[in-house]
């Protein structure tokens, strides 16, 4: 009789003790899993709304990029085409002159996938290779995310930064940025190299770099020899043309970078929503298991209590 009573007592308290031991061991209780599910659902709502906002902004950025394309085509004839940074190991930067000013174009806001880390990696690689060839280079950074990443790797090379740029950009902004470059001494460098992301479509973007050199006014590499200049101040006109070319190229690269950033953010937020959905499914299964375990515990208690009364 005493043995039976003590067995019944143990069988009543054992499930509750086991549940308490489980919580002490670090297994999530039902309440904790429920809270986790709720917060993951909220995150999923936020990321999917961010994705829709990015999709809407991408449309505007694509239109602006189309309008900016003519600002880029003519510079290809004078300075050469942009170089695709597809495999960093094969890029040598041998065509760069002695002093180069590197201008990476990055974003100000985060949660945009890998756009900024690709640019930072490319610039770091470029600086290493340029210095190894005995040449000099300095950096003027556009965008807050690029500043925070690159200031850790090579702070001594940074001359200026332009951050918190109000979107969308326009030609006035490009003019202001080229004024910043001039103030940083761009006219004393042999070339300006702009590193930027290029928008291909909503799922794909590539990294490019474009080298802009001031055109030689006399000597072997004299450019535009077929043209006669009126009045006969070719050096002045070429100086103005170089300024305009720099502004024009910054305008195009900025538009391209903005469209690439939006497409990358769209993809990143879509992946985040998908992952959040999968997490919710896994957590819901766990929650149901925990709930069923609790119900089983309560049933055992009730039944052992009832059988104790009978006995």
């Amino acid at each position, binding site marked *: 009789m005493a043995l039976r009573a003590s067995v019944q007592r143990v069988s009543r308290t054992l499930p509750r003790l086991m549940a308490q031991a489980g919580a002490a061991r670090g297994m999530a209780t039902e309440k904790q899993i429920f809270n986790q599910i709720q917060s993951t659902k909220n995150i999923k709502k936020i990321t999917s709304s961010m994705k829709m906002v990015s999709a809407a902004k991408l449309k505007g950025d694509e239109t602006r990029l189309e309008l900016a394309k003519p600002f880029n085509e003519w510079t290809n004839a004078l300075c050469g085409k942009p170089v695709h940074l597809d495999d960093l190991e094969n890029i040598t930067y041998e065509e760069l002159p002695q002093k180069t000013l590197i201008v990476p174009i990055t974003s100000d806001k985060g949660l945009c996938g890998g756009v900024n880390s690709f640019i930072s990696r490319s610039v770091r690689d470029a600086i290493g290779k340029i210095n190894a060839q005995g040449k000099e280079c300095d950096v003027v950074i556009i965008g807050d995310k690029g500043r925070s990443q690159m200031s850790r790797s090579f702070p001594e090379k940074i001359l200026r930064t332009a*951050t918190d740029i109000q979107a969308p*950009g326009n030609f006035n902004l490009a*003019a*202001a940025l080229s004024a910043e470059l001039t103030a940083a001494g761009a006219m004393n460098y042999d070339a300006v190299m702009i590193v930027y992301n290029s928008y291909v479509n909503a799922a794909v973007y590539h990294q490019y770099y474009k080298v802009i050199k001031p055109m030689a006014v006399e000597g072997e590499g004299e450019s535009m020899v077929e043209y006669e200049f009126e009045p006969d101040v070719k050096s*002045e006109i070429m100086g*103005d043309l170089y300024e305009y070319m720099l502004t024009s190229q910054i305008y195009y690269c900025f538009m391209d970078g903005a469209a690439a950033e939006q497409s990358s953010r769209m993809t990143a937020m879509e992946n985040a929503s998908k992952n959040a959905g999968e997490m919710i499914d896994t957590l819901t299964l766990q929650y149901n298991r925990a709930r069923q375990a609790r119900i089983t515990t309560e049933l055992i208690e009730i039944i052992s209590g009832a059988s104790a009364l009978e006995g």
Partner: protein
Amino acid sequence: MSTPTTFWRLAGMSYTQYVTRAATALRNGLKEPAKTQAMRNEALSYNSATWAGGKAGSKKPVQVLSEAGL
């Protein structure tokens, strides 16, 4: 540096400043409501910071083209 011959250089402007000022003059010639819409294309705003010896200087806000590059 020889004396400049172009009128904008003589006035102390760079070519880009001259071109953007000409664009502003063109936008001012528009009638409403096209004018306000075009003026929106002019707005710019960012923060510029000069770095020296690996350290950032203070951030300066830039709202108009004349403030840039100072």
